[in-house]
């Protein structure tokens, strides 16, 4: 029997208001290749009800998360249950582009030694207007050591890479400790630093495989920028960048003491 080899992890922490519609939209971007991937929503018990029936076309596997519901913790719970060779992350207000599966399959076949494939991410605003590309810079001439491949040295200088929509070898991420939920803001960056530091091969696929809505009201990064209760000032941003640069040497999360930084 044909074995699905990719799991799409969708972390969901709430389903009220616009969130339900956003999730339905995100799921609809999987319709063209749902037969080839396992779709898993990771969510707290409180929102579990009906999530499996959100799409009549896609079989949805709901993973109940009884722990913390921040992005990193949700992904780690999903990762633990993941038994496919590869996994990817779909944020609930984002979408995969139709070329995504075709291009990752093409690259897996050609670059069998690569453990992480990052698609080019098209960043748009809430009105759908194009803002920028992410993950594209590895293809710029002279930017990285080997065109197309993200290396640790480049990452130390340049932080703007996006992991959602990226295809990760499940075991490689598990072996390297998953995401660190005690790192705010720069947890994606720290993960990539850690992976590349440990010899994991990361490559960008030069195709727009994923669309990301930037600064949607209430999104984590929007809150970091605008919500007074969690707002991060410039110095704090720098702190989290520096923290990522210190912590990537360690597979497991360590206690990060904000006040002592």
């Amino acid at each position, binding site marked *: 029997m044909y074995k699905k080899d990719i799991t799409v992890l969708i972390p969901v922490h709430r389903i009220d208001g616009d969130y339900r519609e956003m999730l339905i939209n995100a799921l609809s971007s999987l319709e063209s290749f749902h037969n080839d991937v396992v779709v898993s929503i990771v969510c707290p018990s409180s929102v579990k009800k009906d999530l499996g029936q959100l799409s009549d076309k896609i079989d949805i596997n709901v993973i109940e998360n009884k722990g913390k519901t921040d992005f990193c913790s949700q992904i780690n719970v999903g990762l633990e249950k993941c038994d496919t060779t590869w996994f990817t992350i779909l944020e609930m207000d984002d979408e995969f*582009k139709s070329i995504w599966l075709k*291009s990752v399959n*093409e690259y897996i076949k050609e670059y069998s030694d690569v453990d992480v494939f990052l698609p080019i991410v098209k960043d748009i605003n809430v009105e759908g207007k*194009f803002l*920028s590309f992410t993950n594209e810079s590895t*293809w*710029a001439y002279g930017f990285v050591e080997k065109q197309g491949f993200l290396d640790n040295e480049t990452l130390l200088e340049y932080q703007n890479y996006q992991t959602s929509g990226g295809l990760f070898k499940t075991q490689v991420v598990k072996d390297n400790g998953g995401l660190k939920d005690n790192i705010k803001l720069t947890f994606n960056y720290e993960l990539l630093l850690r992976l590349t530091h440990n010899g994991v091969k990361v490559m960008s696929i030069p*195709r727009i495989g994923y669309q990301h809505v930037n600064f949607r009201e209430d999104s984590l990064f929007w809150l970091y920028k605008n919500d007074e209760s969690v707002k991060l000032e410039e110095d704090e941003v720098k702190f989290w960048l520096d923290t990522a640069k210190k912590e990537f040497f360690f597979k497991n999360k360590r206690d990060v003491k904000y006040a002592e930084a």
Partner: protein
Amino acid sequence: MNKENIEKLESALGRLDKNENVVYFLTYDTKNNPRAAVKHIYDMALTLNQNGYTSKILVEDNTYGGVSHWLDGEYNDIPVVSIKDDKVEIKIDDVLVVPEYYSNVLQQLSSIKCVKIMLVQQKDYIFDTLPVGSRWSDYGFDKAITTTEASKKYILEYFPEAIVHIIPPMIGEHFKPSEKPLKPFISISCRDRVIHRRIISEFYLKYPQLRWITFRDMVQISYSEFAEALNECMVSVWVDDESTFGTFPLESIKCGIPVIGKIPDVEPDWLDENGMWTYDSNKIVEILGTYVLAWLEGVELKDEVKQKMAETLLPYEESITKNNILSIFNSFRNKRIETIQKALDKLKVEENV
């Protein structure tokens, strides 16, 4: 006197019979820099040598830079002889092929009694150095080889007495579709360096989000590097108003890479819906940007375009061109044998009388 001439003709026939006559290709020195026109000459010489002929590259002197930096080994095995230093003696059974570029030496070659052929790859150069009002036949050049139908038509308009053959450049086996995923590179070939710079600058200014896309300059690189670069890029750009054949777009098409190009002053024979063509060079950047963005989104060439690309290449298959070269040079040889035989018979009759 007749006896001496009879001996000369008999030995010429003997050499032709044993394929010992030489085909000389007068070639200009590119100082070991790649040039499609020179490769075409070497391709003809190589094809002939691989099929029992003896052909040589004829150069002005021993300072000739050769082609070793950009053409593979077998091309470098073709003997090179120099007019000044090797004191080449061209015999009546030999063949001399002279590019239009060397029209200024036709007068000096007029006394040589071999088979003389003009090679026209760039029709614009024909009259550059040809004495005003003179024609090739004034110097014994009654045959010509050119690369396209349009060029042949042009030649026959001004040299109606010439017998014109068409040998298009070979689109070598180096060029084949890549089995690997394509890379976000643009191969660019512009004869005019100002236009080359302008296209790249305009592209990056008009599409700043695509500044990470690399342009590969396809000029001055070795043939194998050239083929490799063309093989892995996502699209190629070609602007060459003076081109009379257009090897670069065909090489690109053979790699399965779509071409965005300005239609040259003389439309190539093969021009069709096999690329993204425009008469307006100002539109190149916009077409390129639109194509690159579509490619990034995963848009692929339509089957009809792929079909047109494949059909375009059919007449330029390497085997067809090689057979064409052999057939044309065989006809020169047979005609020469016939002419010498006739002259010989005539002399023998006179001798017997």
